[in-house]
């Protein structure tokens, strides 16, 4: 099929960016979206034009690198997927596709479609861990039974891949879903309860310091989250937060 692409191009953080139009032919429905981008980039290289920079790595929906905003939706027009899992069968011949980076003040653009998400890492540094030594002198793994339901809930929250779709989608550029996923995971587990107070306070503070907005319960993050992280986690984090404040 033939497509008309409108892609955001920006040389570096300081430069001003703009949309550039590209036409592309011979795209098959079985291709993934990023393979379509590969085809375009190969074409550009042979025309001696700088290829379009975009983050990507595992290409199976788990590393969280890819981060394209396609036709106004984070990761494009499908549910429960990352950009690399989007396939061209979701488009039809002659379609126009607008491709932008994940936009948020806290995600400055590095080049073209590549953004700097190190703010996410810094939030984790502020409390996204359990303070135990890795020297191996811990108790046996089965000493403390954990209810299956709690373990499953912790797991569901822990599947966050840190891609930033929640932030890109939210009108407030809020990172609440991302932060709550980690807080919630540990709150379900006995190991996480010891530092629960400090964790939630520090992580929320860091989130605010990084300039992410607040949550106004629109639920858009949950809809676009490729891993289906539930908005219930935000409620849970709020509860943890109030508990810690009291």
């Amino acid at each position, binding site marked *: 099929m033939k497509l008309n692409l409108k892609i955001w191009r920006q040389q570096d953080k300081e430069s001003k960016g703009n949309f550039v139009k590209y036409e592309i032919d011979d795209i098959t429905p*079985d291709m993934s979206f990023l393979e379509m981008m590969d085809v375009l980039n190969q074409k550009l290289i042979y025309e001696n034009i700088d290829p379009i920079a975009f983050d990507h790595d595992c290409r199976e929906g788990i590393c969280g690198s890819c981060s394209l905003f396609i036709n106004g939706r984070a990761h494009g027009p499908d549910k429960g997927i990352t950009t690399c*899992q989007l396939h061209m069968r979701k488009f039809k011949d002659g379609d126009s596709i607008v491709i932008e980076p994940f936009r948020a003040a806290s995600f400055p653009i590095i080049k073209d479609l590549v953004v700097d998400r190190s703010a996410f890492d810094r939030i984790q540094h502020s409390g996204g*861990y359990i303070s135990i030594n890795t020297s191996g002198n811990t108790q046996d793994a089965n000493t403390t039974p954990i209810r299956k339901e709690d373990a499953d809930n912790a797991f569901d929250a822990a599947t966050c891949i840190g891609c930033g779709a929640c932030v890109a989608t939210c009108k407030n550029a809020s990172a609440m879903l991302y932060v709550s996923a980690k807080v919630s995971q540990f709150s379900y587990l006995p190991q996480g309860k010891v530092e629960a107070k400090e964790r939630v306070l520090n992580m929320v503070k860091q989130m605010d310091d990084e300039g992410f907005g607040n949550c106004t319960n629109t639920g858009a993050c949950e809809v676009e989250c490729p891993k289906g992280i539930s908005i219930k986690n935000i409620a849970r984090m709020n509860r943890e937060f109030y508990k810690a404040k009291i």
Partner: protein
Amino acid sequence: MGLYLTEKHIKYKDGKDDHVSPFFIYHINNKRTKVFCSLKVNNKNWCFDKKKVKSTDKQAGLKNRKIKAIKLQLETIISSFKAKREPLSPEKLKSEFEITKLVDNEIKKINTKPAINSKVPNGPLSSKWESHKGSIDLVSPSNKRNIDIIVVGTGLAGASASATLAELGYNVKAFCFQDSPRRAHSIAAQGGINASKNYQGDGDSDYRLFYDTIKGGDYRSREANVYRLAEVSGNIIDQCVAQGVPFARDYGGLLDNRSFGGVQVSRTFYAKGQTGQQLLLGAYSAMNRQIARGKIEMFSRHEMMDLVKIDGKARGIIARNHVTGELERFSAHAVVIASGGYGNIFYLSTNAMGSNVTASWKIHKKGAYFANPCFTQIHPTCIPVSGDYQSKLTLMSESLRNDGRIWVPKDLTDAKLVQEGKLSPLDIKEEDRDYYLERRYPAFGNLVPRDIASRAAKERCDNGFGVNKTGEAVYLDFSHAIIRYGKEKALINGQDENNIEIVKKLGREIIKQKYGNLFQMYEKIVDEDPYVMPMKIYPAVHYTMGGVWVDYNLMTSIPGCFAIGEANFSDHGANRLGASALMQGLADGYFVLPYTIGDYLSDDISTGKISTDSKEFEESEKGVQDLLQKLISNKGKNSVDYYHKKLGKIMWNKCGMSRNQNDLVDAINEIKKLRKDFYKNVNVTGKVAEFNEELAKAVRVADFLELGELFAKDALERNESCGGHFREEYQTKDGEAIRDDKNFKFVSAWEYVGEPSDAKLHKEDLKYEEIEVKTRSYK
């Protein structure tokens, strides 16, 4: 007509001496070819009548012997074709001769040095690690504060090592090329992690895990390392649970297990199909804690470009900052390589797009031996290739073989119809299906090790039984498991276990709980519902058992340079068992390296800070700068991907699931040629000092183009079939591998000397004290 010897005159520019170059002519059916002897003989010393070198030439004997040897080789080829009654054209003779000539040369080139010292401690196997740990030199906490360690890579091995080293008190500088350490490709591991906890009470033990791993690796791994791995495996699980890793649990609240290929117990811990993600996020969180304390300095979007050696010791690295494109210098008292495997040499693999061999290859070029490069794992259950544009392959976890049954049609006509899309697998009757793994290997059935399952799939497809349009796929079918689970659940629920619709519905729910994300992934890619239609799968490159050679302390042959995780070679021999990669990565990082590195660093406590202003750093940086400049200013006609794809094709076709002598010799030559062409004709867009993904890719591909040659050479020299290395020449009548313990029970450790395939071979003899070396059988 026939074969005769003649000579060509060579005139020198100065006109002083005339020489001749003798050559053979093979003449048949008005066609002819020349085979030169690569000799130069002075006119005066050449007997034109007898076509011989006169004794006046100092090297007459040698030269005549060479001519005679070439004649003999040519005559052997001619007579072998006569015996086969095949016509032999001049071109054919030439190509046959080139092959035999090359092999001879290659064999002569191998310069075997005395065995290398793996420094395995003495004493009984089960107490080696304990006593070694007890006698290792320690570094006191106050001295650790003055010691810097560089860790390259933040996958399971790198992240866990960084965290533990920092916790012990060392200053760690960690590097990853991704935008965050959490994105390293360990994140994509699906199925699980092994540990000999014996929670299921099915007779598991450290010894059994050790035994399974050695046997699974086809007796090509180092016994002491594997035993240590099994010993610390249980502790990994304790550690991870304490970190908040949400493993799957049963209704009693205790940890659940499943079974993987090549074993008969359930020892695999898992978190749905995302075990690697959960373990890596655990290690990442341990790292974050140390980053917050200032003990780890994290350098994301930085890629190691070279190792810096001072006085023979590893003292730092040159890294490229991917955001600015600048080169940066980093010094340390030790350098740890944890940059993963080199499966991407095949272009199409289950590795991430950025996975590369550069760090390992750069240290190889600086003196670290590279071990068993040809030991590659081809994973049996991946989603088949669908087109030329494809950039990577997706794995379907081995855990699926717990419940899925692998089959192809029994009948070739059925297979043809399926390939043409005229027959649905659902319409093929039970008795017309060939569950070939269950047929060939009744004891292990669908859970045979990966190398065996992959070859069996290839065998069926090569014989025309494949089930997609290219004929390169087999079925992985869950319909039996769905019915089995459904009936069980119906009984528990008190529903009608004979109502097929209810049973199917309940069964699908159970399968969804177990493998939900994998089924979703499959459906998104293939656009077919795997709960109804059997999955189509085919083998793909997945993991590399080979890697940087290390001793028992995980130190490479460069003092102060260590290699851990998939980057080293030690634990999996010629084939890795499922769920063992995660185990090894974390074992190396959490429990082995942090101790053994002290043995080396204890001599370094008074060294003090290492300056990056030395000439060694300067030279290293200049070398990298020159390479980058060369690549960027080349402005050739082909993209980097063009070369990567070409290399991948050579590797897959000639060094893939089965290999033979002729193909491997061809591969060496083709890769050499391709590399030359790369430096002449590659086009890298953009500039050096900017964010430039093409340039990063070009450096990686340049290193793959060198490794490929050594890979083929290693496969050529290993004249046996073992594990993932299958040489067509060495198989039984029914296609099982023939291993040669008499001649090949060793690790091939290659030392770089210039051209990759000129590498010198060092053999580490493998001694098995506790285990009887047997033919591996899963029948």
